[in-house]
């Protein structure tokens, strides 16, 4: 698939990456002024991933950010004020101050799911969104991110595995920034590529240079459209580096200095600016205009956030339950009749493709990691199964009867 970008798109990518960075720099200043409540996480050096991946989505598509995906939230239509007020725990924040950081979302317009702190839990949730989207005929894709460390959680495994068997339209980006808090990536998984995690689920994966926003976008776009066409989930490993500590309190002394230097030379924003210049996609004036716009917007939103009130204490008791505050109505994009009897009725039988015996297995390709298999103890090869497929068509066990 040839994926190219128009000039305005190139410039938009710059706008979001730069906005992402400028907004986080602003928050560091606020943090030093003691105006941030709780922790502050940085995505410095990882902006190309948040922006490049989310940019591949359409408005109807869904995403759920992790703590270092402010860029994705901006691309999906949230404003700096949303992020500022969240971090400052203001009443004007998307959660009214009930939760902080990137823990917010929007079910109706932007299609963003709020994460929780427990790593991995979003993967099955986004799988469910993809399944429901398919069920409702919406042709949507669900996207989420996970850290190198987060791939060690059971929830990651269960979620991707379910997505694989359900062929859910899930794009999961492993943001391999070399560290999980103080733990180097090799302590999370002893493979060279984290994309190898995909092999356990029989799903395709990409490895991409996470500090190259155009590559990230292209890979993501391809993945998103493959997903949309019903081919099941995809894992993308984006290699990058966390250029700060885990959060503001962490000086990251456990990271070799040379490693920071190495990666600083590959800063995604620098690289992209040079690329835009080299490719003559902008000139100094265009850049200046975009930078000025960003500064203006940030300034405005900063004033909004700073002058916003904290929530009233009484709010604390409200909203534990939905007591009629929401009407829940799915957005059907296919005839409901398909899903109610008699149209929906089927024969409840499994169709088993093959019988799974040892001798029926194709030898894995040479490079696969299985050790060679010892010869059968009784020295014989058994005759092939008479007809495994007899009677029933040889299809995948479940989806054959199902419209997707």
């Amino acid at each position, binding site marked *: 698939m040839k994926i190219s970008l128009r000039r305005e798109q190139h410039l938009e990518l710059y706008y979001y990456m730069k906005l992402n960075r400028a907004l986080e720099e602003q928050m560091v200043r606020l943090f030093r002024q003691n105006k941030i409540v709780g922790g502050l996480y940085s995505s410095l050096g990882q902006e190309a991933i948040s922006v490049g991946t989310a940019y591949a989505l359409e408005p109807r598509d869904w995403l759920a950010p992790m703590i270092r995906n402010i860029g994705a939230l901006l691309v999906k239509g949230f404003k700096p004020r949303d992020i500022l007020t969240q971090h400052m725990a203001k009443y004007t924040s998307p959660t009214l101050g009930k939760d902080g950081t990137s823990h917010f979302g929007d079910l109706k317009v932007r299609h963003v799911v709020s994460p929780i702190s427990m790593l991995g839990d979003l993967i*099955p*949730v986004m799988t*469910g969104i993809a399944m429901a989207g398919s069920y409702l005929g919406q042709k949507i894709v669900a996207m989420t991110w996970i850290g190198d460390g987060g791939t060690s959680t059971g929830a990651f495994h*269960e979620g991707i595995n379910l997505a694989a068997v359900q062929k859910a339209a899930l794009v999961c980006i492993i943001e391999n920034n070399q560290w999980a808090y103080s733990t180097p990536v090799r302590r999370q998984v002893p493979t060279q590529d984290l994309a190898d995690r995909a092999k356990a689920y029989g799903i395709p994966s990409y490895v991409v240079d996470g500090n190259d926003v155009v590559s990230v976008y292209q890979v993501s776009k391809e993945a998103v459209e493959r997903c949309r066409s019903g081919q099941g989930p995809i894992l993308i490993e984006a290699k990058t580096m966390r250029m700060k500590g885990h959060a503001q309190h962490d000086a990251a002394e456990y990271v070799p200095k040379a490693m920071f230097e190495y990666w600083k030379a590959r800063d995604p924003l620098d690289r992209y600016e040079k690329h835009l210049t080299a490719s003559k996609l902008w000139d100094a004036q265009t850049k200046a205009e975009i930078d000025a716009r960003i500064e203006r917007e940030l300034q405005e939103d900063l004033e909004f956030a700073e002058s916003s009130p904290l929530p009233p204490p009484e709010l604390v008791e409200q909203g534990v339950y*939905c007591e009629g505050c929401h009407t829940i109505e799915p957005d059907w994009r296919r005839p409901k009749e398909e899903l109610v009897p008699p149209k929906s009725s089927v024969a*409840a039988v499994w169709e088993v493709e093959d019988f799974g015996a040892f001798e029926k297995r194709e030898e894995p390709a040479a490079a696969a990691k299985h050790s060679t298999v010892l010869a059968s103890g009784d020295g014989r090869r058994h005759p092939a199964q008479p007809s495994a497929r007899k009677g029933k068509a040889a299809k995948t066990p479940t989806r054959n009867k199902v419209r997707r």
Partner: protein
Amino acid sequence: MLEAIRQALFEEMERDPAVVLLGEDLGVYGGAFKVTAGLLERFGWERVIDTPISETAIVGAAVGMSYLGLRPVAEMQFIDFIACCFNQLTNFVAKSHYRWGAPVPMVVRGPSGGGVHGGPFHSANPEMYFVHTPGLKVVYPSTAYDAKGLLKSAIRDNNPVLFFEHKFLYRRVKEELPSGDYTVPLGKAVVRREGRDLTIVSYAAMMHTSMEAAEVLAKEGIEAEVIDLRTLLPLDRETLLASVKKTNKILVVHEDTRTGGIAGEIAALVCEGAFEDLDGPVLRVTSLDTPVPYSPPLEERFLPDVQRVAAAARDLARY
């Protein structure tokens, strides 16, 4: 009761295509207890979803579905396995609406409870873990009528509801059910038997034990009022306090283990709301503070029975 639950699922799925089921072995097989038998045939592969053995993914996927407006009903093959998705339920599901206003209209249901020699991992009564989790609702019916009506309410509710089905009652409790749609409201206890001498509060299988005990007591001239909680969260404070104000004595009976069981919460509520009316201590008859043992004589000793309930009630009545 099993058939009542099946009917509730059936009718809700007929009524609303937003209702979908997911869990292990519930489609082709119809579920370990056959609660979902026939539903795949009728509603198809997209609405009756056999999943891998992944409780966290089951609950997680249900949350995602609910965010798109579906009303998923997730099954735990045995409710014991709910421990495997405890984080997803208590952190993701329970806090969603509070944190960012995203309602989670889903149900998690499954067979619970002891008395069938299921041993330490197939006999759980996990209700208190969730009664202690704001944002969830917890339902535990004792009759077929209630099971059907409460499950319908749970499916239609905009909040996450845990629906426990006592497997001892699945085939033992049989009732003629009214034809036609009906619901039983969440959050309302019911007085199963009127009495003046003391109140016995219970739910699920122990409700039947309590009723039997009440019969025994009646023969001795002690008239127990029996309350079936039905919903454990939110608790029906009003019905409880009204009864205590009438009988002045209260005994709580639950199959769940003793320490940290719901009897404690009820003791606190009664102290707060009706202390002056109490003519005796809030007492409790519960299972022992041990895992659920396997061998029949051990499990029999572990579980409350009619004798123990009647004895405690007798003491309290005479107090």
